[in-house]
């Protein structure tokens, strides 16, 4: 028994119906699914599926505008999901929880509204600071912002062992810095970044701190206040919830100062032909009919995780990650990109296998029922930093077993044999 694993792992696995399906193998023999792509999207427990089906079957109506029983029920379910998310993140106020369609939209909301007139508007001479290990969704919106406003984009580099290079932090965070946006946990390297330390430094110069927590919220206990950040975003489908729903938490005093993002229904107070006034947060940033059933599903998802306990999920991830790092080292020619100490990283492990391209690795593993990701994982600059074009990535979650890691390691040995490497 490996220390730190969730004690009722087999029971938890039964909560996820997809984990019991088989894939077509040779000669009609079914292969058990070994799902090691949870950093890409997580699987969904029955309670999330049932909650969404129940909402559609019994409570479906538009929210906040339907003057009938179903409308009231739907609104209540949607707003209850906001309460659940607020509690899950330890947000001081439920109004600070804005539903978006995903983290990409959340980051674009911030990067766009900072370009527009207002007392936080970024302009020529200002600097926006990101890192080289960001997902493309935390790079491109800031490139667009700085290109549109004449501001300068700067970034932290990456050390050889996959950490953030903070050696030039005094230069990078200066009185011109208006925004610091960084990932909490790297989706490619797995690195856990010192968010609090960087946030404290950024606040000394009055910069806004934005945190991409897409990979952090699924696997770490996240307390948005303790994080030191001003804005924290994540996406629902990586926390056992559905696609199409994301969350942007922000401090009220900051959100109140940002201009509206999308205009339309629900985000207004009153509309005349000449001009409009806007609703207070969170509705000010939720124009149009939102993804209602997805939000309700997300509420069930964070309840599910809270019930298990994020500290237990985190311990499980660390145990599986340590076991995987150990197993991967037994494969000749395999190089892990990122920290080798499981306590310093998340559960996504990217690696290279000498002589076999990641696509080919993924295809061979797929024929053995093992799902991994191959490519640049939307982190091309981080790959370029290590001189690689793409990598193979395994990522575990609360339902991953050591036996599945064994199957991966065996599959990688087989891959080398198949391609006659070494």
């Amino acid at each position, binding site marked *: 028994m490996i220390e730190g694993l969730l004690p009722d792992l087999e029971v938890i696995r039964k909560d996820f119906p997809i984990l019991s399906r088989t894939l077509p193998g040779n000669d009609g023999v079914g292969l058990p699914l070994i799902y090691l792509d949870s950093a890409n999207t997580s699987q969904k427990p029955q309670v999330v599926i049932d909650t969404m089906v129940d909402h559609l079957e019994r409570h479906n109506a538009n929210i906040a505008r339907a003057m009938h029983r179903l409308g009231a029920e739907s609104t209540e379910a949607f707003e209850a999901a906001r309460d659940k998310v607020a509690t899950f993140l330890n947000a001081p106020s439920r109004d600070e929880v804005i539903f978006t369609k995903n983290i990409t939209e959340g980051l674009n909301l911030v990067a766009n509204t900072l370009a527009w007139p207002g007392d936080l508007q970024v302009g020529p001479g200002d600097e926006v600071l990101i890192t080289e290990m960001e997902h493309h969704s935390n790079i491109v919106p800031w490139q667009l912002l700085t290109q549109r406003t004449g501001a300068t984009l700067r970034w932290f580099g990456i050390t050889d062992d996959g950490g953030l290079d903070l050696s030039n932090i005094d230069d990078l965070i200066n009185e011109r810095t208006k925004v610091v946006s960084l990932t909490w946990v790297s989706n490619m390297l797995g690195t856990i970044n010192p968010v609090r330390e960087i946030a404290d430094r950024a606040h000394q110069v009055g910069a806004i701190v934005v945190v991409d927590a897409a990979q952090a919220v699924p696997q770490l206990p996240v307390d948005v206040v303790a994080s030191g950040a001003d804005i924290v975003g994540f996406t629902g489908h990586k926390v056992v919830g559905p696609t199409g729903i994301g969350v942007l938490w922000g401090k009220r005093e900051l959100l109140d100062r940002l201009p509206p993002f999308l205009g339309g229904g629900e985000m207004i107070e009153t509309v005349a032909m000449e001009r409009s006034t806007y609703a207070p947060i969170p509705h000010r940033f939720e124009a149009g009919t939102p993804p209602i059933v997805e939000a309700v599903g997300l509420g069930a998802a964070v309840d599910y995780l809270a019930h298990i306990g994020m500290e237990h999920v985190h311990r499980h991830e660390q145990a599986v990650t340590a076991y995987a790092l150990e197993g991967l080292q037994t494969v000749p020619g395999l190089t892990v990109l990122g920290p080798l100490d499981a306590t310093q990283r998340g559960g996504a492990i990217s690696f290279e296998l000498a002589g076999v*391209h990641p*696509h*080919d690795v993924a*295809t061979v593993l797929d024929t*053995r029922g093992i799902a991994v990701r191959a*490519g640049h994982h939307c982190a091309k600059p981080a790959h370029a930093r290590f001189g690689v*074009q793409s990598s193979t990535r395994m990522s575990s979650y609360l339902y991953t077993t050591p036996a599945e890691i064994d199957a991966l390691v065996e599959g990688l040995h087989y891959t080398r044999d198949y*391609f006659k490497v070494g």
Partner: protein
Amino acid sequence: MTAGSSELDSLYQEIILDHYKNPLNKGLRDPFEAEVHHVNPTCGDEVTLRVHLDGAGAAATVGDVSYDAVGCSISQAAASVLTELVIGKPVGEAMSIHEEFLALMQGKGQVQPDEEVLEDAVAFAGVARFPARVKCALLAWMAWKDATLTAVEKEKAR
């Protein structure tokens, strides 16, 4: 035999693995009339490809195809097989081969390849059953078509 290996063998034909390990015509060369750079945005595979035409108009033939590429075994082997098939052929005939290969790749495994036309490229028939890998096989072929059309246009403009 391990489960799944016959499915794998249908994808990774010996011919493909041979071309992957010993690619033909690789490296960028002069002369050339057109050079293109194509990427597969989903996976990051890249190819830079040059085309040199001999002759002009209807008599033009594909004089040389040279390339530099990074990517998986399927994309690398496809580039190698492409050059072997089209170099020395009249442009019109080479375009027909391209169409035949494209039809095979987009055929979801239902199209019977014409070995007379496609030669070694028939080995890619199995790729069509792996939807995620079709773009790998087509990367260099689409780059070649793009470069060749550019070279023909340039020729016309002269």
